[in-house]
């Protein structure tokens, strides 16, 4: 299981990559392992939407499970990874790269402080596993 060191994480297994005022969101390697083979993905927001923190932004399905993805931060949706709709298996093979989901313009960068860094996320997973 991989945890990328330069990302921020939530306890629901989303990751955020911050670049200035922009945030890119996806789900972690741990999350994709739990879900197993991803067969379907659907965005619940559109480009230009204002999204509140913890709003549902995406639904993701494997054969055995379905899960909602919640926005780790508030902001405006700038871009959706439309390619991922046709290649949901990328969530399994490249969760931190090709399987990025949503790009957002942050409306409250201070919200980032509440997210976990890689080390805290690692601990968080270990606690859940125990």
């Amino acid at each position, binding site marked *: 299981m991989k945890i990328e060191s330069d990302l921020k994480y939530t306890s629901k297994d989303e990751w955020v990559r911050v670049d200035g005022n922009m945030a890119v969101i996806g789900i972690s390697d741990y999350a994709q392992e739990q879900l197993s*083979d991803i*067969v*379907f993905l659907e965005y619940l927001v559109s480009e230009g939407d204002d999204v509140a923190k913890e709003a549902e932004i995406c639904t993701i*399905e*494997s*054969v055995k499970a379905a899960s909602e993805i919640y926005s780790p931060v508030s902001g405006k949706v700038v871009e959706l990874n439309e390619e991922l709709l046709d290649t*949901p*298996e990328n969530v399994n093979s490249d969760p931190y790269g090709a399987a990025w989901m949503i790009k957002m313009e942050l409306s409250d960068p201070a919200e980032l402080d509440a997210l976990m860094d890689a080390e805290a996320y690692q601990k968080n997973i270990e606690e859940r596993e125990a």
Partner: protein
Amino acid sequence: MINLEPLIYDKTSPGRRGVRFPESAVPHTDLPADLVRQDLPLPELSELDVVRHFTKLSQLNHGVDIGFYPLGSCTMKYNPKINEETARLAGFAGIHPLQPVETAQGALHLMYLMQEFLKEIGGFAGVTLQPAAGAHGELTGVLIIKKYHDFNGDTQRNKILVPDSAHGTNPATSAMSGFKVVQIKSDERGNVDLEALKAECDDTLAGFMLTNPNTLGLFEENVCEVSEIVHQAGGLMYGDGANMNALLGISKPGDLGVDILHYNLHKTFSTPHGGGGPGSGPVGVVEKLVDFLPGPLVAVQDQGGEDVPPYYNFVTPEHTIGRMKAFHGQFGVIVRAFTYIMMHGAQGLREVSEYAVLNANYLMALVKDAYRLPYDRVCMHEFVVEGRWPEIEGVHALDISKRLMDFGFHPPTNYFPLIVREALMIEPTETETKETLDEFAKALLQIAEEAKSNPDVLHQAPHVTPIGRLDEVKAARNLVLCCGVPWLDND
């Protein structure tokens, strides 16, 4: 080994005919040219082709008539053949749902008696036969809860509680009816955690949905306290009757504080599961809820006299939630269940539950040294074991299930209830002999041994079925949901 069968669309031959109809004997009327369909892409086969095709398909199935089918919570008991005869009697199969009630008194009589039987068995004041299946009965019940509170002006009651062991239909039904769903955890004996329950019992409580015996096969030991807590908070107790096969003549849910209960005639009362339906999910309610039942119900309109039978008619309860489906319910299923009750009487029904519970406890005793029991208590009509061993990696409940097929058994329910890891839920039913249970236990013990000595034989199972493990990921990623459709490019 039996071979697979081609699709019926692959066996079609243009111009070949099956069943034919007589020539029209009336003067011809032209068809409406602008509305006539040009192309009807259906197969063309002879009658024998069709009969062979479906006979071969049938041979690819496992059923109760073929072998043991201990699918937990589904009550796969023997389906008496006489039920198939009675449901097909011309006087039942050949009557129209809207024909005048004076020409259908036999049907109404039977439905009336069935309502009475189910009232008596469950301890209720009213019963509707309308719901088409268990989940449909649940929807009926939850809509009654909604209507009852609304009627009393308690519109703030928007929350339904379900145990964490609940069947998925409980939360799905509650949400479908506009309720918020809150899960209540189970305690270390597998009962509802009373403290967790109390914490959620406030003036927004609409009801609590309890399956008893629960999906762990355990009788809810605190059922009376649970009912009292829920009632004191102003909530209603909903009973999921999926597991009534443990309670016939043993205890009446109405006596235990249940206000609404759905029966599953296809489980408890032996009507065939039909490869997934038709079911039938009558709902019983206590006195204060009778007026909310869906209509129509059958009532006695005229008591009759010495030589005059009672006259029955349909009535609609005053504050009814409305109709749940067209017509009067799954009548053909009701005839079968009626036949079954008639053949058992009070004593026979009690024996059904007694032997269902005896069989489950016997089987549990035979396997419990080899499979971990999450709750080591006397079980009711079914029990749950863990399909895994901490010291063996990579062997799952699914592998055990697939391996059981090699012995000619249908696997138990897997991965449910969700609160048990790698759950295997086993319900033998009362119609199985001791010998069958011994054979099944022997297979389970052998598999437990194989898990240690030769896990590959589990991973590669099943070995003797017409087809191996199927790729469900491919099925879901690359959807092919039909064949022979000219306007789709699936072929």
